[in-house]
């Protein structure tokens, strides 16, 4: 890459960071009370919430990791990325109930909803907070680590300078404007991802001539080898990569279909955005906007993986030393405009997901966990403590991400599935079924917490789950099973013990 292109990328990226900061700064006026600061509750229309939701869901992994997995094993990963209707499914399953809870009481966090549903059960709120924090901090550290490494390498900067520059600014505007700034900046970053996606999809068709050519190349290429800097690089192609399930085992295809679809309804970045919507009757429109945004970003990831397969199979570029380079290989081949938009998309994806999980984790530490432990603070004090917590967590996360590569990778085990294992018992089951009892949900959450940590240790020891099924499927199923079975035999916060207002929400 020429130095001119590097300067252009720096200029483009700085512009995006600056605009994000200005949006965050301007949003601080709206963060006037606890509900707006912590939850952005009932403040936004469907376009803003839709873009924000998509941007927070589509992390750097969606833009970099997914094309790499498509390059490595074909269409298996596309089952994950083509889950655009998952937002509608989430809103069907839990949308109006989550939003309706914001009418019942002052809702500023998922912990508040848990309080209302389960009659201020401290244990549920505490364990929910701990499991969500585990998932949130894992997401946050991995976004910082991946984005910082990329930009430090690209620009030749010290990683600490790059990390503190990008994510320091992010921490600053997040601390100032809370979730209001989070939603607004994420909407802007989501727009950047969509625009970059459209440009790169166009570039894919320009370089390949369409999907039939990719299919032919992948089906016929066999084994491609090349020597680069003395290293022999090999890519083995198989026609299986291009069928519905790709080249990975069937159990992985199963998991990568149903976990992202169902998991969308259990992600905090989706649930918290539901109560940020001003009018719940706009949720069908929100579903459309989020679905269309995801439609483009999912297709973007698919075409980047396909583009890399085509270029390598055709012999236009050598096989990739690292599958995660797939999107960069395509961008480098296309030229400067593609490079600009690809780096902007990665920056946008990292920043949006990082800011979402920074606010979530600092809200948990400064608000949900203390109240679960019986500490209640007045609103403005809560906001000030949360601002300080955001600074502290943001700074620690940056230092941790830059100094503890292995620990970040280990922590990266937690993520989508971990968050599902906590939210399904409390919200998906709890807000749809009056018989879900506090004892049942507490038991389900305890199982989720214990099994998440146990699975982390088992994974480290090389343990393989039956059928090669990813560990989190087993954990989520166990948490749901325990929640329902224990609820059948217990009565706390169930049926007649439910707050009549929450009863009305479940009936809505």
């Amino acid at each position, binding site marked *: 890459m020429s130095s001119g292109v590097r300067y252009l990328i720096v200029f483009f990226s700085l512009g995006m960071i600056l605009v994000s900061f200005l949006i965050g700064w301007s949003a601080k006026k709206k963060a006037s009370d606890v509900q707006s600061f912590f939850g952005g509750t009932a403040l936004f229309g469907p376009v803003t919430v839709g873009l924000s939701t998509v941007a927070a869901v589509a992390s750097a992994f969606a833009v970099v990791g997914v094309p790499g997995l498509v390059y490595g094993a074909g269409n298996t990963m596309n089952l994950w990325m083509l889950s655009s209707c998952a937002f509608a499914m989430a809103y069907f399953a839990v949308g109006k109930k989550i939003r309706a809870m914001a009418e019942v009481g002052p809702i500023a966090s998922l912990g508040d909803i848990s309080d209302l549903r389960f009659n201020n059960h401290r244990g549920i709120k505490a364990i929910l907070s701990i499991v969500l924090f585990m998932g949130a901090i894992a997401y946050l550290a991995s976004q910082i680590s991946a984005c910082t490494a990329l930009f430090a390498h690209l620009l030749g900067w010290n990683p600490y300078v790059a990390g503190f520059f990008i994510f320091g600014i992010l921490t600053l505007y997040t601390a100032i404007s809370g979730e209001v700034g989070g939603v607004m900046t994420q909407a802007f970053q989501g727009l950047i991802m969509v625009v970059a996606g459209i440009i790169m999809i166009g570039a894919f068709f320009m370089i390949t001539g369409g999907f039939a050519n990719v*299919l032919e190349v992948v089906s016929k290429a066999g084994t491609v080898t090349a020597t680069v800097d003395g290293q022999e690089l090999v890519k083995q192609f198989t026609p299986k990569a291009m069928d519905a399930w790709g080249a990975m085992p069937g159990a992985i295809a199963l998991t990568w279909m149903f976990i992202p679809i169902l998991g969308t309804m259990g992600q905090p970045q989706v649930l918290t955005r539901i109560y940020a919507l001003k009018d719940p009757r706009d949720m069908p429109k929100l579903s459309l906007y989020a679905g269309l945004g995801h439609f483009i970003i999912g297709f973007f990831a698919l075409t980047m993986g396909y583009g890399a397969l085509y270029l390598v199979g055709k012999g236009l570029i050598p096989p990739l030393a690292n599958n995660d380079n797939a999107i960069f290989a395509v961008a480098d081949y296309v030229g400067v405009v593609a490079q600009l938009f690809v780096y902007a998309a990665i920056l946008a994806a990292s920043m949006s997901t990082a800011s979402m999980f920074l606010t979530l984790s600092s809200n948990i530490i400064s608000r949900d966990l203390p109240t679960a432990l019986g500490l209640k603070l007045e609103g403005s004090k809560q906001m000030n403590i949360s601002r300080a917590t955001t600074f502290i967590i943001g700074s620690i996360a940056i230092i941790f991400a830059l100094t503890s590569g292995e620990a970040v990778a280990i922590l990266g085990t937690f993520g989508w599935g971990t968050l599902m294992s906590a939210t399904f018992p409390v919200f998906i089951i709890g807000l749809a079924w009056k018989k879900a009892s506090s004892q049942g949900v507490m038991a389900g959450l305890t199982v989720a917490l214990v099994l998440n940590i146990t699975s982390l240790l088992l994974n480290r020891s090389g343990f393989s789950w039956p059928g090669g099924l990813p560990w989190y499927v087993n954990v989520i199923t166990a948490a749901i099973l325990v929640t329902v079975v224990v609820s059948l035999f217990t009565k706390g916060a169930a049926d007649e013990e439910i707050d009549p207002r929450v009863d009305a929400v479940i009936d809505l």
Partner: protein
Amino acid sequence: MEIKKHKNLIVLLITACWVAVTLSGWYGHWFFGLCLSVVLMLLHMVLGAAQNGIISKKLLIYPLLSWAVLWILGFIVGEYYSKAFLGQMPSFTVFGFHPSFSAIILAYWVGGVLTLTLGLLYYSKEWLSDEAWDTFKKRIAELNGEQANN
């Protein structure tokens, strides 16, 4: 269609589906698990979309059941052509895709949006009517008033 009396059964079916899908993965019956997971998703949506224990028939037929049938058909077609062209280049394509993957593109991806996303938009009143929302808000105001008086 009233589901109020059957909510316990639906939740038990949801739980059974989660367990069965997981066991399908364990024992190598992943394709069965794939199709069963559609039933699992359908049950979650039926439970969540009902208003006062009643799920609108319109909503049930389109988008919900239409979506479920479309996805299961898409998976069956995907599996059929996956086996038919195993280890070889397919003899034809659909929009340039492997015929097996084209079923995923058309039914799973585009079809999912055309049924669930557009269906929610088209039948938004069946999902949450203005009347139901206004009644709910009024009821919450009353209950909040009662709580304040107590």
